[in-house]
C-alpha cells in the first residue's frame, strides 16, 4: 500500500549509488579516508608512469634500435628477438616441429577445461603417456626422415616447457610410488623410500644441477658422455618427485582408517585397494598441494641457466647484452616474467576448476 499524499522519499544521495558505496567503503571514518587518499596517490604515482612507459610512450613497430626513439619501452626488441625466446637455436627450417608440439599441447589441454568433452579421459591419458613419446621423436628427430637436432640447440620457451612438462609427467607417478613406499609395512622398502625422499628434499635444487653438470661428468669413465639436458632433467625429476611424495603422503594420512579397512573387507588386494579406494580420495584432497609443486617446478626450471642451458629467462638475459640494442633489460625481464605468469596462472585456474568439479562434500 502506498501513501499517495506523502510518498516515501528517495534515499539520501549519500547512501545510494557510487557516492553511497564510496562513503560506506572508502570514507567511512577519517582513518579510512586518509588511507584511501594515500592508496589512490600511491597507485597514481606508480601505475601512471608505468603505463606511460609501457604503453603510451612505447615503441611497437620496427626492426632495430633505431625504431626506439620515444623514450618509452622498446617492445621492438622483444619482437625482433622473439624467435630466440621461443625456439632457442632450433634450426629455422625445423620450426614447424616445435610449432606442431605447441599446437598439439594446446589441443590436448583445452578439453580438460570443459566439463563435458567426448573421450576427455582418454585425451588426458594420451597427454601424459603417448604425447611425451611423440614430442621426443618430433624434437629430437633422427627418425622418420626428420633431421636430428641436438639438445644444445634447444632453448627459450620450448626448453622451459620441455623441462616443466617432463618434470610434471614423471614426478607425479614417482612421487605416488614413493609416498606409498614410505607408508609401506615392509621395512626395507620403507627405509629406502624415506632415505630417498629425505636425501633429495634435503639438498637445494641448485646443487643437484651443479652435481649433474659439473661433478657427474668427472665420475663417468672416459668417452662416456651423456647429454647435459638429460642430466638436468633426471636431476629435476628426482628432486621434484621427493617433494611430490610428501604432498601425496599428506593426502594418504588424511584418509580415515575405516576406508583402508573397508577396502580390505571387500577383499581387495593392496594395489586394487590403493588404486580404487584410497588414491582417488587422497589425490583429490591434495590437488592444491600438487599444483603448488607443479607451479614451483615450472619456475624452478629457470635454475638451469646456471648450468648453461638457455631457457626462456637465460635467452632473454643473453639477448639483453646484445650491443646492437641499447638499454633493454627492463623490457626483457618484464617479458620473461609475463610469460611465466601466463603459464603459472593458467595452471592455478585449472586446479581450481578441478577442485570445484571433484567437490564431494568437504567444502565448508
Amino acid at each position, binding site marked *: 500500500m502506498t501513501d499517495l499524499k506523502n510518498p516515501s522519499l528517495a534515499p539520501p544521495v549519500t547512501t545510494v549509488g557510487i557516492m553511497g558505496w564510496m562513503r560506506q567503503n572508502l570514507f567511512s571514518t577519517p582513518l579510512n579516508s586518509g588511507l584511501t587518499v594515500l592508496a589512490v596517490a600511491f597507485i597514481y604515482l606508480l601505475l601512471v608512469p608505468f603505463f606511460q612507459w609501457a604503453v603510451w610512450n612505447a615503441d611497437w613497430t620496427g626492426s632495430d634500435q633505431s625504431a626506439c626513439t620515444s623514450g618509452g619501452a622498446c617492445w621492438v626488441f622483444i619482437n625482433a628477438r622473439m624467435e630466440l625466446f621461443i625456439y632457442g637455436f632450433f634450426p629455422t627450417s625445423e620450426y614447424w616441429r616445435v610449432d606442431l608440439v605447441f599446437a598439439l599441447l594446446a589441443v590436448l589441454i583445452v578439453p580438460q577445461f570443459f566439463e563435458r568433452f567426448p573421450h576427455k579421459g582418454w585425451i588426458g591419458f594420451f597427454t601424459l603417456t603417448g604425447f611425451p613419446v611423440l614430442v621426443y621423436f618430433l624434437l629430437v628427430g633422427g627418425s622418420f626422415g626428420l633431421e636430428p637436432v641436438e639438445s644444445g640447440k634447444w632453448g627459450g620457451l620450448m626448453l622451459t616447457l620441455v623441462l616443466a612438462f617432463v618434470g610434471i609427467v614423471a614426478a607425479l607417478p614417482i612421487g605416488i610410488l614413493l609416498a606409498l613406499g614410505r607408508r609401506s609395512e615392509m621395512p626395507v622398502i620403507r627405509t629406502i623410500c624415506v632415505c630417498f625422499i629425505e636425501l633429495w628434499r634435503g639438498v637445494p635444487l641448485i646443487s643437484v644441477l651443479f652435481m649433474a653438470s659439473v661433478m657427474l661428468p668427472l665420475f663417468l669413465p672416459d668417452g662416456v658422455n651423456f647429454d647435459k639436458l*638429460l642430466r638436468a632433467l633426471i636431476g629435476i625429476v628426482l628432486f621434484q618427485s621427493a617433494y611430490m611424495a610428501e604432498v601425496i603422503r599428506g593426502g594418504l594420512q588424511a584418509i580415515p582408517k575405516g576406508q583402508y579397512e573397508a577396502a580390505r573387507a571387500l577383499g581387495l588386494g593392496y594395489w586394487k585397494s590403493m588404486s580404487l579406494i584410497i588414491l582417488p580420495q587422497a589425490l583429490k584432497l591434495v590437488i592444491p598441494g600438487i599444483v603448488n609443486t607443479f607451479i614451483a617446478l615450472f619456475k624452478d626450471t629457470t635454475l638451469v641457466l646456471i648450468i648453461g642451458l638457455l631457457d626462456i629467462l637465460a635467452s632473454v638475459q643473453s639477448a639483453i647484452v646484445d650491443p646492437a640494442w641499447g638499454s633493454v633489460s627492463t623490457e626483457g625481464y618484464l617479458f620473461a616474467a609475463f610469460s611465466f605468469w601466463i603459464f603459472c596462472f593458467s595452471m592455478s585456474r585449472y586446479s581450481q576448476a578441478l577442485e570445484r568439479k571433484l567437490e564431494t562434500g568437504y567444502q565448508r
Partner: protein
Amino acid sequence: MKRITIGLLGAAVSLSMTLGSVQAGTLDDVKRKGHLTCGVSTGLPGFSNANSKNVWSGLDVDVCRAVAAAVLGDAGKVKYTPLTAKERFTALQSGEIDMLSRNTTWTHTRDTSLGINFAGVNYYDGQGFMVSKGLGVKSATELNGAAVCIQAGTTTELNLADYFSEKGMKYKAVVFDTSDQSVKGFESGRCDVLTSDQSQLYALRIKLVNPGNAVVLPEVISKEPLGPVVRQGDDAWFNVVKWSLFAMVNAEEMSITSANVDSKKSSSNPGAKRLLGGDAGGKLGLSSDWAYNIIKQVGNYGEAFERNVGKGSPLKIGRGLNALWSKGGLQYAPPVR
C-alpha cells in the same frame, strides 16, 4: 622403488651413451664425427653471443669456426655448447667439448693444475675504468676517494685493491652481483667509477641510457690474456688449434684477407704460398688448403676483430694491445716455414 629409479637411470645412460673415445686423439675424433664441439660463453657481446639471426657469433666463436674450417674444410660444422664460468673446465676435461673458446684468462694456476693447455691469445684484455664525462677525470690516478662499482667475487675486486693501495689512494667499493646491476648502479649515480675488463666496459657503455656521457680511461691495471683452451696430453690437437689462430694472425701480417685470398694463393709471394699451400697443413695432419679455408671462410685476425668488436661492431673497441706487433700491439705469430 629404488630399483625402478636405478633402472630408469641405467636405461637413460645406456640410451644416450656416445662411445666416442677421447683417448684416440681429438683430431681423429673430430674428423670422424664430422663436426667440432666448441664450448662458448652463454652470452658475452662481441665474443660469443647469439646474433639477430640466432646464430652464434663473436671473436671467440670465430676461433671455433677457424678450427672447423682448418680440420673439416667448413667453418659451419661447429656445435656450440654454451657454458657457464664454473662448468667450462669440467666440460673440457670430461671430453664433452673438443675445445674451449670462452673468454678464458690464461693464468699460471689454470695452465699448470687443471690438466688443460692454452693454445694462444686471441684477445689481450685488461681491467679498466669507466667514468662519467661530467666528472672531468682524465686519468685513473685522479680517482682518489672515488666510489667504485664492482662485481662481487671476481678478480677485478682484487686487482682494484692492489692498484689503489699501490698508488696510495683510497676508494669506496660499491659491490653488485651482476654486470647488469653494476651498470644500473653507475647510471643512478651510486658510484663515480665502474671497473671491469675493458672489453666489457665498452659493451656495458652501450647499455647506458646516454652512452656519450661516459668515457673509458686509458689505464689498464691488470693482464687478462684470453685464449682458446684444449685438454693437456693431446699435442696433435693442441698444434691444430694453436696454428689455426696463428694462421689468422699471419694472414693479417701478409695482408691476406677473405676478399683477396684467391689472388694471393696464385701470387708469387713465397710467404703466402707457404701459408696457403705447401706442406704446412700435412705436418699438422690437415689438408694443404687448411689456412686457405680459414681465411676464405672466417677471415684474417684483423677482419675477425673489426667485425666482432672493432669498427664493424657496435662495441667500437680500438685495436690497442691487439694490434699486430708491427703496429705497436702484441699480436705476433711464429712464421710458417
